[in-house]
């Protein structure tokens, strides 16, 4: 077990290095030192000031030396501050994780729960008209861009009906009213895909021999489905859903930026729109880190849930 863990962690290191190298290269190529300086100093700054900035920030060094510094900084989690806001990235992330989770965690759980309910129901009534209708419905829901859900939600539910504030964020219980709409949109936007996938997983499970055996023993269908199929199907679902955990921490780009939630997704959108290089690089690095961590976690959960799989 421990051996396996160590090996997985060691395997993650070259991947992380690859990620850093690739993104660093991409961004340093796009963002010439001059762009970075303009971003940092503003459009009306003088050329002399920009040159000075470039020198002070080591942007005139050869690329490999910049890369070395960059890797060292990331390795020690010593991120460069944003060129636009000057905020240290560590602080920005810590401040952003909370709001991001406030939206994504309930949205994720609600979406998961809804998808489970729908897919189980479909398995109950499989191959019937209701099943087909729900499948069609799911495919239809998948075919609408997330942005349309958001625009519709803001224009109709928030402005037209006046149920919720249209945008904003507060911590504490008072902030619930801001969260209801984005959470619902997040759950609904992902529902079609999840429900369809869950249904496929459950249907595969139901074709297994043990289900037939259980039924032959005379167990009622609800019990077979509710206990055995659900339990075994969940193993497969773990793989599929744990992979989404890093997304929760990184927030959902569009929802956060439309609803004015000061989470990490919002940081990313702003970073992209203002070509704020340190922000985007840090986001990429942390995103990859979370992703790899989730991958390892998935393997362990998988092994824990299914005794047939051994980690070696």
């Amino acid at each position, binding site marked *: 077990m421990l051996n396996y863990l160590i090996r997985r962690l060691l395997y993650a290191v070259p991947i992380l290095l690859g990620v850093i190298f690739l993104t660093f290269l991409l961004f340093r190529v796009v963002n010439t030192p001059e762009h970075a300086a303009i971003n940092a100093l503003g459009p009306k700054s003088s050329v002399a000031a920009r040159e000075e900035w470039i020198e002070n920030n080591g942007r005139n060094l050869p690329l490999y030396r910049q890369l070395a510094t960059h890797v060292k900084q990331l390795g020690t989690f010593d991120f460069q501050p944003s060129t636009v806001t000057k905020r240290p990235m560590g602080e920005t992330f810590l401040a952003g994780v909370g709001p991001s989770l406030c939206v994504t965690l309930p949205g994720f759980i609600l979406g998961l729960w809804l998808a489970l309910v729908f897919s189980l129901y479909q398995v109950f009534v499989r191959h019937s008209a209701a099943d087909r209708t729900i499948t*069609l419905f799911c495919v239809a829901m998948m*075919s609408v861009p997330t*942005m349309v859900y958001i625009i519709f939600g803001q224009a109709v539910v928030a402005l037209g009906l006046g149920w919720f504030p249209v945008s904003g964020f507060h911590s504490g219980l008072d902030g619930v009213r801001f969260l209801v709409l984005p959470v619902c949109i997040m759950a609904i936007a992902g529902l079609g895909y999840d429900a369809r996938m869950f249904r496929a997983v459950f249907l595969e499970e139901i074709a297994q021999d043990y289900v037939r055996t259980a039924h032959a023993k005379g167990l009622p269908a609800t019990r077979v489905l509710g206990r055995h199929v659900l339990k075994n199907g969940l193993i497969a679902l773990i793989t599929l859903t744990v992979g989404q955990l890093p997304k929760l921490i990184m927030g959902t780009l569009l929802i956060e930026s439309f609803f004015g939630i000061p989470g990490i997704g919002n940081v990313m959108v702003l970073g992209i729109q203002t070509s704020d290089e340190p922000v*985007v690089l840090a986001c990429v690095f942390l995103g990859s880190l979370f*992703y790899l961590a989730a991958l390892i976690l998935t393997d362990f959960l998988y092994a824990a849930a299914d005794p047939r799989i051994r980690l070696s």
Partner: protein
Amino acid sequence: MDYLSHWLTQDLLLVLGLGGVATMLTRAARSERWSRAWTRFRGDRTGIIALCVVCLYLFIGALETFRVPVGGGDTKSLLDFVVGNIPDERSYSAPFANQVLTDTKAQPDPLNSSRHLLGTNQLGKDVFVQTLKACRTALIIGGFTSAIYIPLGALFGILAGYFRRWVDDLIQYVYSTLASIPEILLLVSILFVLGQGLGSISIALGVTGWVGLCRLIRGETMRQSERSYITAARALGQSHWNIITRHLLPNVMHLVLINFVLGFSGIVLTEAILSYLGVGCPVGTASWGVMIDSGRSELSRDPVVWWNLTAATTALFGLVLSLNLLGDSLRKAFDPKRG
């Protein structure tokens, strides 16, 4: 000259790509698996309808793609001939509007009434025509992207699955690295490097998009490699190239096809997000993503400008939905047990 270079750079490539896909499909279709799938697919009503809808979009896209010279060095697409000369307005106009707004007050339209089926956009262009023209943009992006990521994904997948060992390790390393970068950030950074344009979008989407297909093909190739026919072929001393092209490729082609159809819909949806992030289509190109993006502020106008957003969403929805349904039907046809 302009016309020829335009052809060479865009349309010819597209035609070549489509031709290549068609040849591969016909070759693969000779196998028994494919003909059985085709028989099953013919019985699937949803799939047939979806296929027809996709063909309709293809047709409209093709109309807009083929351009003919109209003298004076200008070109017009076939679509321009079909929709005729719909005049531009000064700015927004509602569907079927029969009044025009001059400086301060509304007056009856002197020409003829209700000439814009779906109204006009901010620059006064007919939304219906723009929606149709955007078909080409979506198809070009989808087509180019597929032309990039499908060969990449299929090739790497087969190589990794067939040769295993260090080839597999290397390919796995490359795609784990790509997969662990948040997709949208990778896309945006590649687009910043390449600059804007339909080609750049396709390259960016293609470079990031092959990972899923590669994984799938790698798994399938590994399963196939253990089958007796591959072992036999090896024992007979057939070259690797022969085994890959004659035996492995035809046996994974159906996965490629399904992935192509479903992937296409994903690409069309991603384009909409890219437009929001400001790295979408070039200026002046009709695109659903751009239309949806501008719809975001149009909804807060009064009277609400809903037609732009609605038209783009509906058109996009139609294409993506039928692609998804088609993909599902194909999967069912190839693998009736798991469908």
